[in-house]
């Protein structure tokens, strides 16, 4: 019995369906029970959180967590479906400290809010950047430039005349 089936047996209310992510067991779960299911997975021995992926399908968002167990040498993937207008999900930083930066990056590039994250600000792009680049409706035609403001912070604006040598 692989790990996804175990989870379904232990928490039948939270797990919506079980499938395969090519050859790894995957479980689609309800977004409200994410912390509960992830905590149960950690108890089952899945102690390594590998990656947090956010994907923008045009009518909904998906967040996929990939776990691995050092003791049992097994893989597990959890998938959560989110609304397109309000993509919010609970944060896993209470269980895994490594989820901190992975979730910040997903917020920065895809725009998914993680409730309960201690410090959810942009990490790869400067603070005032407009838009989330990995969404499918991001505007690639307007260029945004960065200059240094008064107290050393970055100031982002589409007008780059302080910085550029010629128009």
């Amino acid at each position, binding site marked *: 019995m692989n790990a996804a089936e175990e989870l379904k047996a232990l928490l039948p209310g939270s797990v919506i369906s079980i499938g395969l992510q090519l050859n790894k067991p995957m479980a689609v779960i309800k977004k409200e029970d994410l912390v509960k299911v992830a905590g149960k997975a950690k108890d089952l021995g899945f102690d390594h959180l590998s990656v947090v992926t956010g994907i923008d399908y045009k009518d909904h968002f998906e967040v996929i967590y990939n776990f691995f167990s050092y003791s049992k040498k097994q893989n597990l993937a959890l998938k959560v479906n989110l609304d397109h207008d309000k993509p919010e999900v609970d944060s896993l930083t209470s269980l895994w400290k*490594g989820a901190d930066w992975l979730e910040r990056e997903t917020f920065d590039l895809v725009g998914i809010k993680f409730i309960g994250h201690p410090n959810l600000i942009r990490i790869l792009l400067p603070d005032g950047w407009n838009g989330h680049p*990995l969404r499918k409706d991001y505007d690639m035609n307007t260029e945004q430039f960065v200059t240094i403001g008064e107290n050393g912070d970055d100031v982002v604006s589409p007008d780059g005349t302080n910085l550029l040598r010629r128009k």
Partner: protein
Amino acid sequence: MALIYSGGNNVESDELFINMGPVHPSTHGVLRFKLRMDGESIKECTPVIGYLHRGTEKLGEMKTYLQFIPYTDRLDYISAFPNNYAFVKAVEELAGIEVPLRAEYIRVMTMELNRIVNHLVGIGSLLMDLGAATMIMWGFRERENALQLFEMLCGARMTFNYIKPGGVREDMPEGFIPKLNEFLKDMEKRIDDYEQLINGNEIFHMRMKNIGVISGKDAVNYGWTGPTLRGSGVDYDLRKYEPYSIYPDLDFKVCVRKEGDSFARFIVRMDEMKESLHILRQVVDNMPESKVISSAEYGIAPMTGTPSSVSTYFPRIFAPPPGEVYSRIEAPKGELGFYVVSDGTTKPYRVKIRSPSFCNLTAIPSLVKGLKIPDLIAAFGTIDVVLGDVDR
């Protein structure tokens, strides 16, 4: 607040904010640390990244699968073959492609050579930051020999674009194996030289032992992988325990140390170089002769087309079936993973890169509390971070 004792009176002083800016000779690239210091010791350290963010993941949605492979070279630019291979492995799993045996042997050979080059550069830069400039000179001298081998193979020194879905781009040239054997013999003697120079050095011991200690459980919780994790006692290597390619047939040890400090991580890297030499000798001895090394069905044209294979000379359209896959390999810096989502067209729908340097960097704030700035540099150097990997 620091208390300065002067003649019996306690004088309180304020905290000091220091910025180790993006342009700094000791941070390996454009990385910025915001430090809050109490006298000379660090109270809090915040890394600020994003100064090299080039938008590789967005470009993955705008280019085809074959056009994206050069972008994967530029992620961890010191060792580019494993990056190529991680992406190609994900695509091959998605499309169900079989790879001929000789191509697998060549791939493993290039990846292990790259592991040696990476550790040389990593150890060299670490020692240059500590003040010993000999090791980086020696490291780059060996690296030149390896780069000449790569140039014979695929024409480029650093960014190769050599591994394609279905095999490799072209076969090894005539004089490659003798030159590789010479390199292996040479490298063995040199590693003994390095060990003699560095391992017993007292100053090195004082600067590296008990600096940046982290326990195995904490390291796993932070998501550490690779030689940094093996320096803390967790015995895990993707090549051994979730093997891919021809690693099940090869015989090598996993190098683990228990202490968890910077010195242990350094020794793990030195041992890994020796294990890589051992693997390379096995690969060279058992290299099979198989006829086709790059499969022309999947869109790769053979570089030297014979008249009979003119019909397969032009590349066809390469579009794997819809699906998603997450595949990971053991890169020299840790676990490198690609999450590829395909929707049946020639361009990927989403490419997500799980890079080892990004995940290894999250633990720096807790690693250096209470240390001085030179200790921060020593601990940070053993984690072996490359900014192209962090910022993508």
